[in-house]
Every structure is written in structure tokens, then in C-alpha cells.
């Protein structure tokens, strides 16, 4: 019985770690840069396909973190500077900007996915890496999933401490609270918001890479992760980075428990949770 419970809990944490990482990225993009980025899943796809592509050249997926992360960061940063900065400065209000930026991100979804389809096709891709069991308290788990969880937690914590302990992190938090005042205090808002969007994209890239270690991947995988991410971000509290981190693990655990009891209901459980949250606590766990 204890082994069974351990099985369910650790399986949930393994999945939750990936959800947490993805959701932190979107939370940053929405919480600070005010972009509800529907194309977030496409950056996950880029990270995953990038790792798969590099693996073909013999590059260890963990080494690929150092390539895929910066590449997705640069793409995100440039997109914000070119597309979203223009939308922000030309919008009459923050509400109008949120609406137009969300529509723009819809467009980005199709553009990025189509480019990937042209480059890599739509076929299923994957590779095997650290695909052997590890005994944890009598329960067996895949080595690659444990590595993915360790990296997800590590990256999440590094990111969190970057936000709370560094000067740049303080500027980001200031921009999240009140961009206009932060600008008056000498924070280069355009630069900081682009940085946030780029960092969000980088987190998605990292998560995509870790997903590719555990799951088959393809160029149309992005949207399903975007949907899960939105649920996690709402669960954690819109814009709350720690909330997203915790929300990811909670959703992973719920998914694992429901899968054990009745696998057919696992996705339905996510949506039921989403509905309940919107009814009972629309601000999420740590939202204000």
C-alpha cells in the first residue's frame, strides 16, 4: 500500500515539476509583460524539437539546455521588442493592450507552428535517454524522469531567487507592480518587459527540452501544453510566480491520483478543477 501511494505521489511530482516550470514562464509573461501568451506552447515545442534535433548530432540533452534556453530567450526577447512593444505603446489602455497582445500571440502560434512544420514535418519524434528504472523506497521510477524533475526544481528555484535576490529581479517586480512608477524610478521598462517575455520563453524552452527526455514530441504538441499551463497559472494565481510553481505540482498530483483511479477522467479532472477555482477562488492559491 505504501509503495502504491509512493508510486502515485512521486509520479504526480514528476509530472508536476514540468508543469510548474512551464507555468512559471507564462506567469512571468502575463504577470509582468501583460501578455497572455497563447503561443507559449510553441516555445515548449521549440525546446523539445531543438533537443531532439541536437540529439541527432550526439549532443547530450542536458548540454542542450545551454543551447535551447538562450535561443528561445533571444526569440522571445526579439518578439517582444518588435511585436509587443509596438502594440503596448499604441494601445489606449492596459486592457486594450492585453486584448490585442493575446490576439497577436494567437497569430504567433500559427506562424511558429507552421515554420516548425516546414522545417521538421509533423511526424512523431523522440529519443531514449536514461531509460532505466531507479528504485525509490521500493517504487520504481524512470531515471530520465527523476533527472527532469531535479532540473525542473533546480531551474524553478534559480529563477525564483533571481527574482527576489538580484537587482534586475527587483526591477522586474517593480515593473510588475506599477510599470509607470517603475519607469519614473529609472527602470528601463521596454527592456525589462522584453526581458520578462524572453525569460518566460526560455522557461518554456527548458521545459520543452525536459519533456522531450520523457515523452514523444512533435511540431503540433504546443497547444495542449498551453491549455494545461493556463489551468496551472489560474490555479496558482494569475501573475504569481510562486503560485505557478506550487500550482504545477498540485495539478501533477491531481492528474496522477485521477489517472490511478480512472485514467479516462484525468483531463476532465483538470477542467473540473479549473471550473471550481473560477467559481470558488478566482484569484487562485496565491493570487491577490
Amino acid at each position, binding site marked *: 500500500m505504501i509503495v502504491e501511494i509512493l*508510486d*502515485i505521489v512521486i*509520479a504526480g511530482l*514528476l*509530472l508536476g515539476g514540468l508543469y510548474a516550470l512551464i507555468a512559471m514562464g507564462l506567469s512571468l509573461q502575463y504577470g509582468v509583460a501583460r501578455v497572455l501568451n497563447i503561443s507559449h506552447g510553441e516555445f515548449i515545442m521549440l525546446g523539445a524539437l531543438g533537443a*531532439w534535433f541536437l*540529439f*541527432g548530432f550526439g549532443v547530450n540533452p542536458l548540454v542542450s539546455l545551454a543551447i535551447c534556453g538562450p535561443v528561445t530567450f533571444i526569440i522571445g526577447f526579439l518578439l517582444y521588442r518588435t511585436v509587443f512593444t509596438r502594440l503596448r505603446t499604441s494601445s489606449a489602455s492596459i486592457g486594450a493592450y492585453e486584448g490585442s497582445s493575446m490576439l497577436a500571440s494567437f497569430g504567433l502560434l500559427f506562424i511558429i*507552428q*507552421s515554420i516548425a*512544420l516546414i522545417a521538421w*514535418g*509533423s*511526424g*512523431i*519524434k*523522440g*529519443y*531514449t*535517454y*536514461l*531509460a*532505466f*528504472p531507479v528504485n525509490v523506497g521500493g517504487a*520504481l*521510477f*524512470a*531515471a*530520465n*524522469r527523476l533527472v527532469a524533475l531535479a532540473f525542473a526544481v533546480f531551474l524553478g528555484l534559480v529563477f525564483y531567487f533571481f527574482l527576489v535576490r538580484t537587482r534586475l529581479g527587483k526591477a522586474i517586480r517593480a515593473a510588475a507592480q506599477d510599470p509607470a512608477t517603475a519607469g519614473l524610478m529609472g527602470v528601463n521598462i521596454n527592456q525589462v518587459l522584453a526581458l520578462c517575455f524572453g525569460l518566460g520563453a526560455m522557461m518554456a524552452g527548458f521545459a520543452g527540452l525536459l519533456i522531450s527526455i*520523457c*515523452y*514523444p514530441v*512533435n511540431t*503540433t504538441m504546443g497547444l*495542449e501544453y498551453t491549455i494545461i499551463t493556463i489551468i496551472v497559472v489560474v490555479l496558482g494565481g494569475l501573475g504569481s510566480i510562486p503560485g505557478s510553481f506550487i500550482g504545477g505540482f498540485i495539478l501533477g498530483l491531481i*492528474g*496522477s491520483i485521477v*489517472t*490511478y483511479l480512472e*485514467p*479516462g477522467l*484525468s*483531463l476532465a479532472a483538470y477542467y473540473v478543477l479549473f471550473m471550481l477555482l473560477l467559481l470558488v477562488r478566482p484569484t487562485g492559491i496565491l493570487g491577490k
Partner: protein
Amino acid sequence: MKKKVFLPLLMAIFVLMFLFSATVTTAPAKDKIVVGMSRPLSGPMAKIGDSAFRPVYETFVAEVNAQGGIFVKEFNKKLPIELKVYDDKSDTGTMTRLTEKLILEDKVDFLWPACGTHNIFAQAPIANKYSYILLTAEGGATSITPMLQSLPYLFISLSFSDWYQIPVWADLLAEKGAKTAYIISMADLFGIEYAGVSSIELPKRGINIVGIKSVPPDIKDLSTILKEAQKTKADALMVLAYPDAVILATKQSMEIGYNPKAFLGGPGVNFGFYHAIFGPATEGVSGFSMANRKTSPAMKELFDKLYKNKPEAANDWWGHPLYWAGYEFWKQAIEKAGTLDQKKIKDVMVAETFNTVLGPTSFKGGLMAKESHTGEIGQWQKGLFETVGGGKWPNTKVTAPFVYPKPKWPVPAPAKK
């Protein structure tokens, strides 16, 4: 004078008007056959459509057109095929709208199929309503079989659960002394059909189903279910789901060291990308199959043609030969009917037997006759997807014996792309 000119002029106008109207109402000379399709060029079904029917129809059309087209006696010439393909974005609602657009607005000469079991269900009544032949590609038809009498324009090319894969799989297991099986099936029409047929065919042969779990198509973690299967010590694990879940089940079985004596996964195992992902670890894994290069010289020629200069991931040892045979059959039916009239061609398709890459091929009651099949079950052996089981008919060509129990997963699994 004016009167003298007026009357001939009036007559000339009438004659010209008659000639003009005759010209516009006469059908223009036919110079091509327009084929319309609603296909999942994007969205979650794209990965299946692009690996399954797409390479076949692209190669088939190119080959037919290189020969000048299909000879149609009615026009006394060969007509090349022109494809009109719309992206249904993997959405059934969009697919049905596009199908009606192809028929009503584009007025295509022929309708080729959408992708997936559920889409056959949705598209067949539309095609039938407008009397368009629908020769399907990807998708099984267990549930639609009882309706085939009321869908005379529907022709199913692919083999499926009780036509005749699961009975053959059950025979293979029973011959080797397997007593128990655990089933993971996808929660959609495909999974329902296969799990339902398995629940009938396996117990008939003394194989007890010790567990059955239905999972959503986009499930992200199968480890708890696989561990449950492992505890039952079932001889066979059957993963009756689409490729994502089949690959996930394979990965996670390796990762938790779960080694059933027989592992059947499908669709997914039959594709080259499965071997490209797992390499030698695929040894002994079974899936649905029709043929390989050893089946016949004609089959070798087909696979060489389809897979020339293409990566291994493009291979499909189950659907490709059947889709090709189906459309070879269709071409011959048009030539035999000598017209593009759907009803006349349909009547030929119902009545005739033509030689295709499978050998003598015919449709019985809307299904490609199981006697036309060259195999049903395949198994990866030394990098080849061998046909290890088929029906007891003349076309059947088993290329290697069924290996049972399958070798254990390599530990640790080799890194392989």
C-alpha cells in the same frame, strides 16, 4: 431597304444566340480529373495523416500523371489527376464542412478520404448523400460495418480489429500458450472498437483478460497503469491506442523494467519512426501489419518506390500497401467503367476483382476482402517489421515465425534517435 436588312439581321442574331447558348451549355472537354480531400495538414492528427495516407497519395498521383493519367473511354483519352487538398486542422466539424464544400462548390470529380476512424463515421454519410465514392484510408470500421448496406458508396481499404487483426493475434498468443492479457485502450472510437473485439476474441481462445484500462488520447503518464499491469503478471500487454500513447507505453515499460511476454501496440509500432526512436529495443514488439519487402516482388517494388530517399521514419508496414492497393483498384475501376460517373464506377468496384500490389483484390460488402490481405500482425525482428501472422488465405505471406516470449528490454536502454 431598312426592312430588307432588318429581317436577315434579326435572324443572324438569333442564330448567333443559339450557337452561343449551345456552346456554353455543352460540357467543356475534360482535361483532368479533380480529386478533393479534407486532410489534417495541421493539428494533432497531422502526425498520423502525414505518415500514413499522404506519402501514398502523393506518390500515386505523381506516378499516374507521369504515365499521362487515367484512360477514360468516355473522353477517349488519358486524364491526369489534379489534387485539391484543404486543411481541416484535425477538426471533425471543419472536415465535414470542407467535404460539402468540395462536393457542392468545387464540384470535384472524386472525393478522397479524411483521416481517422471517427472521421470515416462523419464523412461516409455525406459522401453517400451526394453519391460520391469514398474509398477510405486511415481508420477502422468495426462499428460502421453493420451500416455498410445503407452506405453503398463507402469502401474501406484498411484492415482493422475484427477484419482480421485481433483474431489472428489471439491465435498467435493461444498457439504459444499465453493465458492472460492486460489491455490499455484509448478512450475514443478506435480504442472502443479494438478493446471490444479483443474482449470477445481472446476469451474464445482461453486467454483471460485480467485488466482493461481506458485512457484519454493525450495522457501524459502511464506509469501507474503499467505498474498495475505488471502486478497482474499478464502474459500479454496490448496498448490499443494512437502512436503518442503507444510510444509513451513503450518508453515507460522500459523505464520501469516491465517485460510482458508479448507486447502489442498499435497503430504506431508499424511505423518506421517507432524503430527510429527505439532502435534495437524494439526487438519482439508486435503491431498491426500488412506486408514488407519480403512479401512479394511487387511489394518490394512498391516499398522501394515509396521510401526512396526518405528517412526510416516515413515507413508504414500496415497502411501503405493497403492504401496503394485500394487506389490501384480505384484506377482500374475507372478504366473498366470508361466514365467518371460515380454510380457506374461504384458498380464496377462492387462486382470486380482486380490485380493490385496485394495480388487478386476485391471488396465484399464495402470492405476490402480479408482474403486480399497479405498479413495481419507484425513483429520487429532484427530491425525488420516481419509479418508473423495472417489469415488462412492465398494472398497471406508470413515472413517470419512469431517470437514468444519477446526478448526483455535492454537495460539500460541504449541512447537512440
